[in-house]
């Protein structure tokens, strides 16, 4: 019974993968033929299936860039960087995209805070867990070795790996909590109106955001999002004005 289930799951997985691979190469062909609208439709259809990959976000970003939709291009590259934070190609294209976005708000925080942020942002949650598990294995091995040979060297060794294991675990927890408590989005529409409350009323219109800017999402309702920007502005925008990075 278990074997049959396994075979079934494997078959479905392979079929699914083949289908998305075909779509991916089809979208790439559209891109090569400068049919960027068609390429976007196919790339987005893969995302709609619940599948994603770093390359998909990268290619989607490139396609939006070619169409001059720098807001969506930025969204795609940012999503790609979430999956692969040290991807040089995505970083390169993202920097170029930011240059194309007018009124980009990038206000740096304190240096130490940024070092920590950059370190945490340089690795994915999965990578931190992998590192932690690897350190746990080394710690276990060195501990067992120490039980056998009982030398000071083996003691130092297992203390060292224990420290790295706790460091990796701490980073995993911090990364997990940070991702859970901080969600971001990219403004899609030009001159997105910022309101002081979740109502369409010109009297409470407090500011304007331009497309392509990355903002932090504070809270959400069914139609509105409360956001705060890098320059300290805070207010409500409509759900259709933003694409969330999650």
């Amino acid at each position, binding site marked *: 019974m278990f074997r049959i289930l396994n075979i079934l799951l494997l078959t479905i997985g392979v079929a699914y993968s083949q289908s998305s691979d075909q779509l991916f190469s089809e979208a790439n062909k559209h891109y090569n033929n400068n049919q960027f609208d068609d390429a976007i439709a196919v790339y987005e259809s893969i995302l709609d299936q619940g599948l*994603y990959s770093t390359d998909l976000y990268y290619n989607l970003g490139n396609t939006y860039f070619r169409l001059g939709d720098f807001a969506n291009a930025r969204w795609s590259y940012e999503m790609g960087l979430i999956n692969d934070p040290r991807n040089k190609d995505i970083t*390169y294209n993202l920097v170029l995209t930011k240059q194309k976005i007018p009124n980009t708000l990038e*206000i740096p925080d304190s240096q130490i805070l940024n070092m920590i942020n950059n370190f945490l942002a340089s690795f994915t949650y999965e990578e931190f867990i992998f590192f932690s*598990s690897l350190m746990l*294995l080394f710690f*276990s091995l060195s501990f*067992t070795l120490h039980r056998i040979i009982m030398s000071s060297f083996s003691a130092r060794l297992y203390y060292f790996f224990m420290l790295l294991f706790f460091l990796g675990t701490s980073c995993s927890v911090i990364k997990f909590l940070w991702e859970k408590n901080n969600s971001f989005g990219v403004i899609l529409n030009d001159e997105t109106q910022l309101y002081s409350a979740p109502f369409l009323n010109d009297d409470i219109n407090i500011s304007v955001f331009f497309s392509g800017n990355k903002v932090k999402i504070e809270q959400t309702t069914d139609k509105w999002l409360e956001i705060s920007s890098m320059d300290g502005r805070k207010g409500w925008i409509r759900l259709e004005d933003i694409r969330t990075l999650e």
Partner: protein
Amino acid sequence: MIRYLLAIIIFTTSLISQDIETFVVNKNIDIDQSFNFTIKIKDIDTDPEVDISPILDNFSVIMGPNIGSEYKFINGKKSTSRSISWTIIAKKSGELKIPRLKVILDDKKYFTEELIMNVSKKATDTLATDMFLKIEVSDLDVRIGEQVIITYTFFTRIASKVLSTEFPKYKDFWVEKLFDPAGKQIKPEAWNDIEINGYKYKSIKIYEVALFPLSEGKFDLNSMIMKIETKEKDPGIRRLFWDDPFFDTFSQRTKARILVSEQKTINVSKLTDEPEDFTGAVGNFNISSSVSSNVIENGTPITFYLELAGEGNLSNIGRPILGFPDDFDVFDGEILIERNIADSVSGTITWEYNLIPRKQGSYIIGAISIPYFDTIKESWDIAKSDPIKLNVTKNNYVDNNFKDNQLIDSKDIRYIKLSDTEWKTKNSSNINSLSFFIIITSVFVFLAPLFISPLNNFFQEQSLVFKNKSALLNALKLMKSSDSLYIDCPKAIMLYCKDKNLIDTINLDSLSFIEKIKGKVKSKDIIVVESILSECSQYNYADISTKNSIKIQQKTIKILNKINSYV
């Protein structure tokens, strides 16, 4: 058909006009003279509803409405009528219209007649009056945006009490209140003593506003109306003992008076030859600019302040559009307006601009010029600030993106990925299978020492059991493969005893060996073993025949088999 319709309308109108009568006692009045306006409705028993708001543009209601009823019996027939009256006063002079008013009676609408009132300006004769309201206007001929200060002062020679005040409303002007007595307690020391034409008056400032004309034209300012209660001598009562008005309360009577300020007309002319960058400043101004910090790091926001100080229409000046260096991101900040507490006429307006420099270097924010119409010189002038130097230093903050910024020269993105990609699902776990396998393995490795020790003991036990069982066989094998039975027979015996756990080691001399096995092997068997060991010891170095050695071997095998049967 149309003729009939017209006849019906005229007939109905005449009927209504017969039912409702509107009248005043005198249509020719002075501006400070109050009068009764009455609406009389015949043949009704219910109170009518009258909307009087249309007359409030030109008149002010001092008292009312007062409703009265009248009953008449003519030839045995009863007729009733109701009258509603208000005491009103004109706000300005000239030919003022009391428009048709809507009267609702039993859910039916009626309209009163229109009345024209001739209101004449009364020459202010301070000699003749014991109290008056004075209006002072700083300038009657002004330009659009020019500040006009209007002050209302109350003068009196007799004890009086202000019952109510109706402050004028100024259309077509931007109004800033400079002095408003509402909610303030007027202290006795606030009254000033002043002598006018030989008469001593007490005076107090009642109201002061700054007006800023918004359009050109002639504008009549509505009068201020004050209702005053006075105590005056009653000529009908003669005083008996003394003539001191302070103690004389019996011979005084309370009287209400209405004071109306003089009407003024302001001529507003438009500004000509406006400069292109004119933002509405009219008055007399100075400008200054400053920044929150002159030395800043690249990417750090600063605030640029532009302050315009002086007398004029501060609230009506638009934010100037300034030309900052191209490498700065500019965001409009707050606008702060502050009035000078000392004179309430001058003040400052400060515009804030939030700047974020994007490149390092030295920058100069040039001198800022704001054109304004100087109301003193009656000509255009320019307020100019000094230029400001800014030093933008390199940001110590290292961002990979900024580093990459400098690397990008080609200005084109890198090409798409064409190879197969590794797909993930949105719902996939954050812990991949490899990590999971490593964690499980680590747990096992960590716990391994706990299992090793018992396992070791088990194997040792098993080994001992095996040795025990194979003790005789090992001893026999040793003897079988022996070249010198005199040496190997004792060895075989000792090996057998060791495998059977009777002794710890085989490196024992005969006496020690015998001592060790005592109690574990039967006594008669020990004697046999002792004899074999002794015999082997004797013939070990002697050349004894093989026949004897075989005998010893057989003897050894026999005794070992015997011992093996019970050990």
